[in-house]
């Protein structure tokens, strides 16, 4: 069982000794049961850090955000940065390191093993409670959660409200870490890896397309899925029409001739282009942190799109994004034994 005091002491120690200038972690929010991200820069603030099954966010996003803010030189330099990271979050840090987004010495990974459980899926909780939200969610023994509701408590078996990514997790303990809390544990045994993707593939192509049309049709194009993804760090996203980079030297022609890969209209077709292009840009890079799906206000099962591609990467190239820092990234490497029937 991970003790939050261990995380707090670690963070305080790192800040005190000057090993890091800041720590990305979780704190109790004001908005309800879910923990929220925080950045602390003083050892005295370490007591506000929390650890529970509502620590949903992949904080690696803020390592990316920090680099972008530094590039615009608007904020004080807070490197090296300590980051509280679950297994999936540490994989995101690993991919960012592989892609040279920042340097290894700029980040201190405070790894936390999910130890055979993981984080909850608020949408599953919403389904269980038909839209209502608990005021508190806690671990309750090894295989369950305790929800506090208006007028009572409720015990729920872990598998009922655990996020799908946690059910299928292959590495619940952060492989990339500078310190790790909690017991190392690998596969969970709740569900086999790629279980949901394989199950989805059981349907016919027509059925699958109908399902995705239904989902794309509901998309609001709020771009939360792209904005929350640590791997979606491009300064200008080809499928997000709201992020154009304009430099003083950008010519009128460049601005005028910029291709709109998808229109602003949230049509089924435009939203399909948005989501499918995004998924393909994440092939071999998605660490299955599930953030895209978690943040979707209309609950589009976006994780399925990404895990389908990761399944291909695994089955064809035995590649798992972020599992091994010494490995070259999938799209930048070639081995003689790679299947290459698509070329011949």
């Amino acid at each position, binding site marked *: 069982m991970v003790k939050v005091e261990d995380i707090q002491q670690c963070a305080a120690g790192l800040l005190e000794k000057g090993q890091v200038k800041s720590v990305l972690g979780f704190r109790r929010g*004001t908005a*309800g049961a879910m923990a929220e991200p925080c950045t602390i820069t003083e050892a005295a603030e370490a007591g506000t850090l929390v650890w529970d099954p509502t620590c949903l*966010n992949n904080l690696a996003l803020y390592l990316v955000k920090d680099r972008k803010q530094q590039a615009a030189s608007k904020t004080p330099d807070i490197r090296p940065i300590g980051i509280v990271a679950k297994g999936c979050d540490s994989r995101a840090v690993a991919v960012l390191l592989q892609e040279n987004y920042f340097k290894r010495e700029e980040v201190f990974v405070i790894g936390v093993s999910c130890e055979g459980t993981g984080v909850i899926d608020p*949408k599953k909780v919403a389904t269980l409670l038909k839209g209502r939200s608990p005021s508190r969610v806690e671990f309750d023994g090894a295989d369950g959660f305790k929800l506090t509701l208006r007028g009572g408590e409720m015990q729920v078996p872990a598998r009922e409200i655990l996020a799908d990514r946690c059910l299928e997790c292959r590495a619940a303990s952060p492989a990339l870490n500078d310190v790790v809390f909690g017991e190392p544990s690998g596969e969970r045994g709740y569900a086999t890896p790629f279980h949901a993707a394989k199950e989805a593939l059981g349907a016919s192509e027509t059925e699958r397309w109908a399902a995705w049309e239904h989902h794309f049709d509901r998309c*609001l194009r709020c771009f*939360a899925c792209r904005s929350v993804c640590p791997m979606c760090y491009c300064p200008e996203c080809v499928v997000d029409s*709201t992020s154009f980079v*304009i430099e003083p030297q950008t010519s009128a022609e460049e601005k005028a001739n910029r291709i709109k890969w998808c*229109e602003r209209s949230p049509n089924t077709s435009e939203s399909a282009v948005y989501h499918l292009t995004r998924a393909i840009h994440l092939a071999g890079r998605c660490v299955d942190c599930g953030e895209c799906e978690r943040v979707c*206000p209309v609950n589009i099962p976006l994780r399925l799109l990404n895990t389908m591609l990761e399944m291909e990467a695994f089955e064809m190239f035995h590649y798992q994004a972020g599992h091994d820092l010494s490995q070259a990234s999938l799209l930048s490497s070639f081995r003689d034994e790679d299947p290459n029937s698509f070329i011949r």
Partner: protein
Amino acid sequence: MEKILSKEKLREWVGKLDGCEVHAPAFADSVWNYAPVQTGGDIDLSHTNTVGSVKAFAFPQREVFFRFEQAKGGAPVLTATVPEPRPTVVFGVRPCDGRGMPRNDKVFSAEFKDPYYWARREKLTLVGLACNEPHSPNCFCQSVGGSPHSEEGLDVLMTDLGDRYHVKAITPKGAEAMERAGDAFNEAGAADQAEVERVHAESRQQPQRPIGDLAAIPEAIKQNFDSPVWAEMAQHCIGCGICTFLCPTCHCFDINDEATGANKGERVRTWDNCQFPDFTMHTSGHNPRHDLGARLRQRVSHKFLYFVENHKTQQCTGCGRCISECPVGIDIVAVLERVGQS
């Protein structure tokens, strides 16, 4: 007009609304949202609040203004596409969403009347449902001048009395919708009246998020325009569109020409969002609201300062969606509290 409708007769009322499009909350894909009701279909009014707000019935996310066709060097042929919708009745509108509509009406009327908004709005009948208990821990309707049984903006207000609904017509449009199924309703007696008052009074005692002195907020925001508070509160903002797209009063939009073929296309309005980087960016690249702090300040200032200055009321009805649905916990109530302290 105040009537009593037994719960099993709700379906009968809906059945009498022939010729109308009827929408009601439905729980699908793990979220409550409005969905069309088939004739004679059931309505489940056990909903919390819908994830999308009722504004979309008058201000859909995508509205085609007109189609155009123009060969090179030729004359443009423009065909306006002002909608001609059927009368639409929406059930289960929470009072916070109801209060959103008169605020949207102000925006789409002031100085220039918006024909697309009003073509839909005039055909819209909102049947509200009072909240006997808060549907989320982030409800704060009473903190912004509303109430769990506010009638503002609604055409009908229903109150759940256990085995039956108390149904009150607020506007002639609402009365007309009720008269369609006159037989389904019973007269509301003195006991029913007393019960409604009791339920309403009880609902007002339920816990909500407090925001302190509403009247002091505009000045506090004004004083804090250059404060570091905004950047601090927006530190973990990811700049997505959830808070504004789900808001019952956010009305900002974009207009673009979209091609539908060679030499033809549509001029289209879509929802836009003050949290997106390109929202205010000039073509030169200059951006008057260049960071997330400035954009959070705009969202909060628009609702609690500028709208108050322009329309004498807040542009927030306390539904709490922007708080509950924010992926990183940005909380407009906490922001107001923080700004009030600075």
